[in-house]
């Protein structure tokens, strides 16, 4: 690690930190229905939306109705994305003439599930599969609304804690519309223009053919990238316009855009802690969660950065410079861009997997084992280190419930969090959410290590599901586990070596995304509904304080211990053993089965 590297990490964090309070307070105002400085500009659009949708702004919903609205909204979102992809040949803005065969039903399903759930897993390869219209009207739209839906749910869950003795949690349509119009749209709009000014492309032209200096032909891709890029990061979506995602120079052309994109990624989840504190009437509660996030985030960054900078010992033996100098970054540069170097790649990797983004500015598959374990563990926490827009907040509240339930007993009272007694229902729902996600990750991964299909058949043309791995040995296991972890956590980043565009992977991964989104979120909404109806217990010196360092430590401990205990056996056979093997010089080659295409 270099001092400039550490300085860049701290600078980035400081940029996020200064926005937490203003943006957090702004969001609290928006969701509490107070007038903000954007109302003169946007209020008419909000009113118009309700009018078009036929929704009454002042009617509140119980948790069941709230969930029903969310599901109804998602079903149509899903159908739209699916149909637009399948029909892209007949739709405008398709200069490359991508047709229906490019998007098979299973791929279209996977992509629809992916964008609907804010996962944005890329089984597709953007530049060779999807028309500009699909990128805009399907993917960009879902980038907004899947984030807006997550934010709405988070706000509803926060209300569950903030309110007492009421049955309602707010109105989904209103919360979702406000998220979109007041929070996501303005920042994205300005962000897109800024990105464009720095070199991110934004046009509807067909690809340009260039004749290179050496006389070869090069097709330079075009498209409306900046408008998608801004919301892709801000909405912690991560599904890129291009296959290479944010490593692509047209998505992320410079260190400045990189810094800006990371800021976009983290700013809403970070600020939401303040919104939470404000809405529950005690900003210290929000800061405590922010502090817990920060501890886990920084630990991840420095582990990832440290191991990456140390480089691959096997390559070092070949005479490669692995120490950093003033003229080159050193470390493990495989899969990384020169402009980002090791530090900005490790930082991006951590940010994108702490949040549920999954955008990548380097190939995670080429990370060194322990550095690659960082994004994996980040996601195995159910993505509650800052987390996705909204999703991180409601996710961490699940862990708060569990942490407070176990430790709260140790103060000799029925555990209470924010004045709400935690009882059967809350514990049941919290455990349900955690069980569902871990089951999804472990079971699907296990199935994929064993599933055997006919070679050249429909389900998985390469044959056995493990034949799709781009790496063998422990790294191959990591690829499979990473895929289902990323899908279940609605992250979307990948150990990209595994070729996942087959019906088996498209369907199971798509399923994992849906389960990870909805079966995680519905229990939390249920718990919120039950919490809202409860009385508020007054705080006394006998109440376990949930705003001090002790709570921060406890929350971090709970998140880490649950993730580690659940996944240690699996990761010990993946990244952990690979780390030791790498240092002992062991290599694995793909020889045991035929490689697909």
């Amino acid at each position: 690690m270099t001092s400039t590297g550490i300085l860049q990490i701290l600078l980035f964090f400081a940029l996020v930190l200064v926005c937490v309070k203003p943006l957090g307070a702004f969001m609290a105002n928006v969701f509490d229905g107070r007038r903000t400085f954007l109302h003169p500009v946007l209020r008419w659009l909000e009113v118009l939306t309700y009018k078009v949708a036929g929704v009454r702004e002042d009617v509140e919903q119980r948790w069941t109705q709230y969930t029903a609205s969310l599901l109804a909204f998602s079903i149509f979102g899903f159908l739209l994305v699916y149909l637009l992809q399948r029909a892209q040949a007949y739709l405008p803005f398709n200069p490359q003439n991508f047709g229906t065969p490019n998007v098979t039903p299973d791929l279209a399903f996977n992509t629809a599930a992916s964008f609907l759930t804010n996962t944005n897993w890329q089984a597709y390869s953007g530049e060779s599969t999807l028309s500009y219209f699909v990128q805009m009207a399907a993917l960009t739209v879902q980038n907004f609304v899947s984030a807006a839906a997550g934010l709405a749910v988070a706000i509803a869950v926060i209300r569950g804690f903030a309110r007492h003795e009421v049955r309602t949690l707010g109105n989904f349509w209103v919360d979702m519309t406000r998220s979109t119009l007041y929070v996501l749209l303005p920042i994205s709009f300005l962000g897109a223009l800024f990105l464009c000014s720095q070199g991110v492309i934004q046009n509807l032209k067909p690809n340009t053919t260039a004749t290179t200096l050496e006389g070869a032909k090069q097709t330079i891709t075009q498209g409306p990238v900046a408008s998608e890029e801004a919301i892709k990061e801000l909405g912690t979506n991560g599904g890129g316009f291009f296959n290479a995602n944010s490593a692509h120079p047209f998505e992320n052309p410079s260190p400045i855009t990189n810094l800006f994109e990371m800021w976009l990624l983290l700013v809403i989840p970070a600020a939401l802690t303040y919104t939470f504190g404000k809405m529950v009437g005690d900003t210290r509660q929000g800061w405590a969660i922010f502090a817990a996030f920060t501890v886990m985030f920084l630990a991840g960054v420095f582990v990832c950065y440290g191991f990456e900078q140390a480089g691959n010992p096997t390559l070092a033996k070949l005479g490669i410079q692995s120490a950093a100098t003033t003229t080159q970054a050193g470390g493990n540069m495989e899969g990384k861009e020169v402009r980002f170097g090791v530090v900005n790649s490790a930082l991006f990797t951590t940010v994108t997997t702490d949040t549920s983004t999954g955008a990548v500015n380097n190939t995670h598959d080429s990370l060194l084992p322990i550095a690659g374990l960082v994004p994996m563990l980040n996601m195995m926490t159910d993505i509650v280190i800052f987390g996705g827009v909204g999703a991180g907040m409601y996710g961490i509240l699940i862990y708060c419930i569990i942490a407070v339930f176990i430790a709260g007993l140790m103060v000799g009272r029925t555990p209470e969090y924010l004045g709400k007694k935690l009882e059967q229902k809350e514990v049941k729902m919290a455990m349900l959410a955690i069980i569902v996600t871990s089951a999804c990750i472990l079971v699907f991964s296990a199935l994929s290590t064993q599933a055997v299909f006919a070679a050249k058949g429909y389900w998985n043309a390469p044959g056995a599901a493990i034949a799709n791995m781009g790496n063998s040995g422990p790294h191959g296991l990591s690829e499979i586990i990473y895929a289902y972890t990323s899908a279940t956590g609605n992250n979307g980043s990948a150990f990209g070596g595994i070729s996942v565009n087959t019906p088996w992977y498209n369907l199971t991964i798509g399923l994992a995304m849906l389960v990870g989104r909805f079966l995680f979120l519905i229990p939390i909404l249920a718990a919120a509904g039950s919490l809202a109806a409860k009385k508020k217990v007054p705080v006394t010196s006998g109440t376990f304080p949930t705003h001090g360092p002790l709570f921060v430590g406890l929350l971090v401990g709970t998140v880490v211990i649950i993730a580690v205990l659940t996944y240690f056996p699996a990761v010990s056979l993946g990244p952990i053993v690979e780390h030791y093997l790498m240092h002992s010089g062991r290599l694995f080659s793909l020889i045991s089965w035929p490689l697909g295409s």
Partner: protein
Amino acid sequence: MSTVTTTPQATPNPPLHEDPTSLLPKKLARSRPLFDPEIVSRATRASFGKLNPVTLAKNPVMFVVEVGALLTTVFVVRDIIAGAPGLKFGLQIAIWLWFTVLFANFAEAMAEARGKAQADSLRKTKTDALAKRLTASGKIEEVTASALRAGDVVTCDAGELIPGDGDVIDGIATVDESVITGESAPVIRESGGDRSAVTGGTRVLSDHIKVRITSNPGETFLDRMIALVEGAERQKTPNEIALNILIAGLTLIFLLAVVTLQPYAVFSVAQAGAGTVPSVAVLVSLLVCLIPTTIGGLLSAIGIAGMDRVMQHNVLAMSGKAVEAAGDVNSLLLDKTGTITLGNRQAVEFLAITGVSDEELADAAQLSSLADETPEGRSVVVLAKEKYGLRGRHIPEHGANFIPFSAYTRMSGVDFEGRELRKGATEAVTTFVKEHGGEVPGYFQEMSDRIARNGGTPLAVADGHRLLGIIYLKDIVKGGMKERIGQLRTMGIRTIMITGDNPLTAAAIAAEAGVDDFLAQATPKDKLEYIKKEQVAGRLVAMTGDGTNDAPALAQADVGLAMNTGTMAAKEAGNMVDLDSNPTKLIEVVAIGKQLLITRGALTTFSIANDVAKYFAIIPAMFMATYPSLAKLNIMGLHTPQSAVLAAVIFNALIIIALVPLALRGVKYRPLDAASLLRRNLLIYGVGGILVPFPGIWAIDQLLVLFHLA
């Protein structure tokens, strides 16, 4: 005339225990040694009975262990038949897995056996006595006690057992209630008032009473008590259910982690081209070590033991829920008299008005109090004697007319030799003086108020038309009470003093005792309102009560501790009965409730924290043959894969048995604020839980190798 004007206290107020830092008194009425041989042997037998999978299924964690043990046993038997190698390991694993289940069963059985032993001793006293029932015509017929129904009236003479629960409707008697309370001093039971309740199975020692039976056979207090201590009606408490869900959830997660480890292992073995897939015994071992067996095995024992501890304090909790609620209490309604202050006020000073000597006042006060057998009255006589050397004189009964206190006149005194000596409430006595043509000086009211403001009770004394002065009766706050109330405040509990005194007096005593609030001139209705008000604000309220009037408030309170001396109505309305009838007990009950919850939390934390070390023991052992590099994770330096797995399993089983005393006694509770308490417990059970297994497993591994067991 009757010499008895008040009933003596049922039991003397036990002195506050010496150590003010501990909320739990050291001597317990019904304590038994933790490992009483009789209980241990009873529990050991019961542990095997509890292997029945149908009963064990109620405990998901131990049920999983049992299934695992069974599975391992099946494979061992298969291997024995096939003559496969490596039998020693599989056999030992199977044995220790069975021990794990047995140890958990033993913990629960121990807790239950203690209750059963108590129930047995209660049951011995339950003989089917003959009852003398009064027929409608007023005749007495002899029936067995079991033939009595609610509403029957029976008579009981000295030496007879009272055949059933009921209220005394006529007469007064001393009763030996030691069967119920463990206290041998007899108590007085009389008709009317708040001391009318009698309990079936207790014995009349003197006199004769008529009792109206209030309960049907099988539903008597003694029956309920037996059922409660035996745990027959034990239902899981809300918090216990929630915790059960949590640990069942964790069990499911670990089940998934271990079941899916098998395919990962198959994959890894194929990729590495070395090693073998872990056997069923090893996978089951990993599973059993990971699932929270410690808390899963001890959870129900903790609950039963909590009830038992309440019982040892001679408090009968009607449900575990009540004990749990006690831990949550935010507001404690304490009766002033007997709880905060010593039961009786005492005369501390005579304040004569101008022109009257103190001696004259003292003399009049003493004379007016000679027939007053109340403690207050006696304290006047004593003070006059001590301070002015006035000896108690005998006033001949003839020629003297003692005026007893009445709620109407609010005065008492004596008429003799033409004098009319009166003492009583200031207003009553000044009215008396004025009626007799006397004068009341202007400053007199102020004199009286000053005493009230200081928490005292002024008793004016007059001799006919002459106003003499005031006797200063003072409430004495119990020693150590202020400290305990301070501790309660630290624990986040508000104390509210309930008193019939006027607000001035109440405020002064409240200040002296350091309570947070007080309710003066409290009527039962006021209490009820106060409780409701607190509950609306989200607070849980505990109170004590004895009178029938208290019943609604006792029922409303989240924890209602009824005094055993109180009425049946009160005892039925509350959810706990203090057999010692000591209102201070409420504080101890709160401490026990907290201790119960802390014990659960501590052992859950400990149980989960333990897993870290077990991973370091088992994972490298499982895959060392496949990936020798994983030996780097064997940080304990365990000898062989077999010894490592075995050591982890044995540690896991032994820790259950090692923690049985903790589960039964409860973790040490200190009255600290929540943050300090949590920091302390997290350090001991969280950090300790991570660290302890490392040396533990290491040591077992050493022993295993030493004895060639692995």
